[in-house]
């Protein structure tokens, strides 16, 4: 039974893929818009049948007229529902990342030339979001579970416009990936270390000399006023009294399973603390090492390495 169900979903996914191959931006065309009557739509159709029977039984033309009118409204709703979704171009922001078990807000862009009504987007059924009427951007929540590098799941764009009679839906396979970094886990040891490095950093507050900018220097130390005058040679504040702090090496022990996860989580916390204090740090992981440095790019690189290990 279960295998049948999974096979059906697999077949369905395959079928969807065939209709809409992965792409960075997808324009909703007739081929990938699926319109099904909603539950209310089915009740409405029952109403039409009942009214027709009432009209014929009472031989009352006015009731018949009304039932036919509601039929034409149903058909109108069908076309309007289709037009509401048709020709929308859906894309999303390229780099997406979150820490595990966090909710990743995926910025989805719905671009359409004419205004659309009451669109909803979701990755999972129970977390729908409405698209605000005057903006084309929507943040769609995506709950992350494990660290890693994943393809974006199918994005459903759905609308019940105009009468709630039809469920007009498109399930898009967007060609994006997102990073899930290990979840930061606060520990005592790291806290004390953090305080220490904090003291060191506070010492560095009274900089008195400057030196030329080197790749990896924190932007916080940049002398902006000088940069405006002489953009060719950027300089940063430099504290000669305290020597360049010793780089911290973050080591991931060669363990596996739950122990690895905990180690990664702790390392992640430490790394974030160090980054916050602009202290250089390096990463040793699986015989691989990333030489000590500082800055957003470096952090990203290390986190990615940890996500994948």
């Amino acid at each position, binding site marked *: 039974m279960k295998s049948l169900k999974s096979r059906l979903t697999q077949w369905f996914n395959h079928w969807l893929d065939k209709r809409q191959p992965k792409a960075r931006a997808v324009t909703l065309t007739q081929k990938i818009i699926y319109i099904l009557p909603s539950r209310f739509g089915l009740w409405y159709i029952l*109403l039409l049948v009942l009214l027709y029977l009432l009209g014929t039984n*009472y031989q009352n033309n006015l009731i018949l007229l009304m039932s*036919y009118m509601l039929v034409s409204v149903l058909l109108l709703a069908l076309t309007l529902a289709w037009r509401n979704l048709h020709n929308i171009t859906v894309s999303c922001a390229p780099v997406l990342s979150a820490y595990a078990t966090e909710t990743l807000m995926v910025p989805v862009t719905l671009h359409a030339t004419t205004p659309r009504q009451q669109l*909803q987007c979701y990755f999972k059924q129970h977390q729908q979001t409405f698209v605000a*009427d005057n903006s084309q951007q929507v943040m769609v929540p995506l709950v992350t579970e494990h660290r890693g590098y994943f393809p974006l799941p199918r994005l459903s764009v759905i609308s019940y416009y105009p*009468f709630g009679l039809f469920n007009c839906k498109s399930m898009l396979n967007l060609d994006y990936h997102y990073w899930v970094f290990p979840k930061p886990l606060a520990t005592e040891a790291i806290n004390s270390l953090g305080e220490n490095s904090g003291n060191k950093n506070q010492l560095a507050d009274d900089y008195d000399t400057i030196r030329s900018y080197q790749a990896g220097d924190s932007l916080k130390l940049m002398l902006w006023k000088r940069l405006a005058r002489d953009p060719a040679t950027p300089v940063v504040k430099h504290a000669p009294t305290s020597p360049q702090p010793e780089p911290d090496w973050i080591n991931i022990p060669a363990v596996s399973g739950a122990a690895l996860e905990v180690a990664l989580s702790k390392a992640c916390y430490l790394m974030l603390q160090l980054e916050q204090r602009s202290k250089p740090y390096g990463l040793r992981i699986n015989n691989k090492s990333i030489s000590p440095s500082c800055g957003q790019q470096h952090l990203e690189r290390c986190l990615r390495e940890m996500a994948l290990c």
Partner: protein
Amino acid sequence: MLVLLSRQALLSFYAILIAVIVLLHQALPLWYSAILVVLLLYRWPLQQSSSKVNKLKRINIIAASILLLLLISIKQSGVFHFMIQILLLSATCRLVLIHQRHDSHQLLWVLYFLLACCFIFYQSMLVSLLILALLMFTLYSHYQLYASKQHKIQLLQLGKAILLTLPIWISMFLLFPRLQPLWRIPTAETAVTGLADSLDPGSIENLVQSDKLAFRAIFEDSLPPRQQLYWRAKVYEDFDGRSWTVNQRFERRQPASRQPVNNNVERTLSYQIIAEVSNQRSLFALGMPVQYTSVVRPASAYLVEARRPVSQRLSYQLTSILSAVPEDIALEQRLNSRTVSANPKTKALARELTSKASSTAGLIDQISEMFRQQPYFYSLNPPGLGENSIDAFLFDSRTGFCSHYASATAVLLREAGVPARVVGGYQGGVWHEEQQYLEVRQREAHAWVEYYDNNGWQRFDPTAVIAPERVLAGLDAALSADEQDQLQANWRRLSAFNYLSQQLLHLDYYWSVWVLGFDDNQQHNLWQQLKAAGKLLALLGTLLITVLILWWYLHLQRQPAEFAAPVLLVRRYFGKVLANKPAGQHFSQFIAELKAHNLADANLLGKIDMLYQRAVYADDQQALLQLEQHLKQNASTLARLNWPEKQTSA
């Protein structure tokens, strides 16, 4: 998905439901309407209360107790009204409780159904349009539920939507097959209007005071003379000395089809009748009907009756022979010769008249003569009559309305041994020349006599003897000015009002004929006509499709071209040589290469390149025109341009 209902949506639901309650008041006892309104007020002032669960419980208890009350009174109201009451109850309880958009689905469903039920009670044009407007408003509120808040319906869009739906709607109405009624529908018990089953000396006078429409008639050919327009509705055969009643045999069903006695001799008359609501079965026919539509069936004494009491406007088609009605059953003569012991003076008079007359026709002449010679008067307000009403009328008051004369004549004839009965119905009507229909109101109610002679029931109208104007020109002509005033309601005297109401009545007439009267017969005819016009329709269809394709093509043409104009120009004139240009290469580079191979045309190519750059990148219209000119002038040169690979291959 949680979407709360806006206050505006709630208010519009309130308005719709209250309108529906008002429209359906006929189906609701007064106490019940009051309960519904109180229940609706329960939610005032439309705020969301915190104790939602409590509220639900409370409403459920209230609804259950009301349901119990309804069940107790189901005998009085009937099944159909009971259904409406329950639907209204559920709608009201729902409306009191709803908070979310999702909850309004059931409410909308019930509202649509109730709006359709309104049409069972009202079919006149004005109220129907009102209900239709209410339906539109419901649809609008429904639409608003699922539309963006800032969104305003634009007229253009609305027009497009209507343009899209209207043809579907109308063609479905005209062409979608109709079923025969599937089951007997419960009918509500309501007040009966029109002629009653018994005819007292005063009943027709009361009926005549009413200005209400009884029915309309449309004739296939021309209007028959007024003297022929005796619309038979009821035959009264039982006389108790004072009033006439309908015999029990009329309750029995008649065989569905009756063979006309001799069909080809007499002139037949076909006509359509649109009967107003009367809540009784009896319908109206002229003379002897021979062909019926399916909604009506023959009744005893060649009357016509509906299959159900007429609770909504009914349209039917008849063909009649304007001749004396033949004998229906063998017993009929005996039945109509019965006399009662009352009215001794009339008996004596009948004996006297019989002795003078040699035949039945002679007797009729004698009676007419009597009414004409002696001081008999025609009046809307005859004095009251005693126990022996016929005696009192014939010998004392001598003043009466049609029912008095008909009743007295029938009694006289029966006493003289001639089978006779009183027929109730309508006489004449108001003919509307422009609209080509006859309007028959309750004031045209009339009673006359049928006596058996020459193998048929001959018609004799004593009123025509006393007041011939009544038959020839209508009731107003036969009455005194005071009596005419009595008949007219105050507002009818204003001529502008009168005119307006008459125009409305005409509109209502077209409404009945075209909308209410459209039945499966007419639908069948329409299908036949469509089939006959098949070729023409196919032609029209192809024409329409061609026009659509043309329009589509033009529409496509208007769309921005894939390439800019200069690119297209260059593509056209450079021809095959351009095929050698690699996809990523710039046009200038290509021209430079070309120049190297075609030194003779280097000048021309340089000029073209310069114009091309200006036209493409600077949007220079002048340059574009010059480019086109140059290309056109040197088309032959450009076609002969050399390309090295070609030469090597050649």
